[in-house]
């Protein structure tokens, strides 16, 4: 049975899309069929990591939400990104991007969309693409769509930076997720300075939220230099950061 994994953060700029792309790719490398849906319709971005721009995106999630096509028609097979890394047989990755056209983004902001259709679309993708995992890259904060994503998640992965604003916002999101009875929650701390004591940080955060910390990602110059042009763990599979991503992926698959 497919698992829905929502990757969320209370605030923007936590590295949510980068983390989603890396963890989803790692799960796919373990031989699973994986899709990523970019539900951050107001500020889409994850397509960049898979080499897409507005010219390449012919059909997007927006087209589905406005009744122009079936959601499966907006899914791009991007499994070629796995070709340079050891991947177990059967590993596939699909991307459902959001539109980059200014008019389409403006329309979403002005008119919204049918949130129920989004839920139906997730189920349709799971069936039609025979998915093992559906990753939802969410818009930061709490709104109608993120509440839906949280509610239907089998696993909610919350990304936060070691920052007081992130800590407070994450506390709110954890409370919301508990109220919505999300079966499994994980935290991932991103952009931690290497001078920090990671073990102490893990202990403190786990105790504060009573949620397991799946991994702590150090602030990495290589990651910044890559500038979202590729999926980091596929480019640098032996980098310590990729090992953390592997560990988080293992906990998602556990």
């Amino acid at each position, binding site marked *: 049975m497919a698992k829905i994994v929502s990757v969320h953060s209370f605030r923007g700029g936590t590295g949510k899309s980068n983390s989603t792309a890396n963890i989803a790719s790692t799960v796919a490398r373990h031989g699973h069929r994986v899709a990523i849906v970019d539900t951050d319709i107001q500020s889409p971005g994850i397509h960049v990591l898979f080499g897409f721009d507005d010219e390449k995106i012919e*059909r997007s999630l927006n087209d589905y939400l406005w009744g122009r096509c079936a959601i499966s028609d907006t899914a791009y097979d991007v499994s070629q990104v796995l070709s340079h890394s050891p991947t177990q047989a059967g590993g596939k990755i699909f991307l459902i991007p959001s539109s980059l*056209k200014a008019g389409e983004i403006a329309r979403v902001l*002005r008119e919204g*969309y*049918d949130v*129920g259709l989004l839920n139906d679309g997730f189920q349709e993708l799971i069936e039609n693409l025979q998915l093992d995992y559906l990753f939802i890259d969410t818009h930061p904060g709490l709104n109608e*769509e993120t509440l839906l994503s949280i509610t239907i998640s089998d696993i909610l992965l919350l990304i936060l930076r070691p920052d007081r604003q992130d800590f407070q916002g994450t506390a709110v999101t954890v409370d919301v997720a508990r109220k*919505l*009875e999300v079966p499994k929650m994980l935290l991932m701390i991103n952009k931690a300075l290497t001078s920090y004591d990671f073990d102490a940080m893990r202990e403190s955060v786990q105790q504060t939220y009573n949620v397991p910390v799946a991994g702590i990602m150090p602030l990495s110059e290589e990651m910044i230099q890559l500038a979202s042009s590729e999926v980091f763990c596929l480019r640098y599979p032996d980098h310590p950061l990729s090992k953390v991503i592997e560990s988080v992926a293992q906990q998602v698959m556990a």
Partner: protein
Amino acid sequence: MSEPTSDFPVQGNDGEDSSISMIDIFTLPDSLRHLLSWMLRKGEVTVQEVAQHLKQEESIVIPMLEELVEDGMIRVRQVGEERRYRVLLAHKSNRRVSKDIWSVLD
């Protein structure tokens, strides 16, 4: 490219003046929020599945589901002998302008 499938025949309230938003669900009493959250995860459920989930008799569950249909929170479709229920989520907002107006920005 295939066209999206058309919606199925439904009973109960359906439209912009009924239905329920995620924020409404979040603020419901615990038992009702539990039921609707579970239904959202499942997509579509039968009376038997609801009864099993809530550990209640079907005779108790049926009127409860029908009341939710009446209230516009869920909708039902008949498939043969079976009634299948799903949460009726609200549109995020009403559309007030031509759907083509935004294309001027592209």
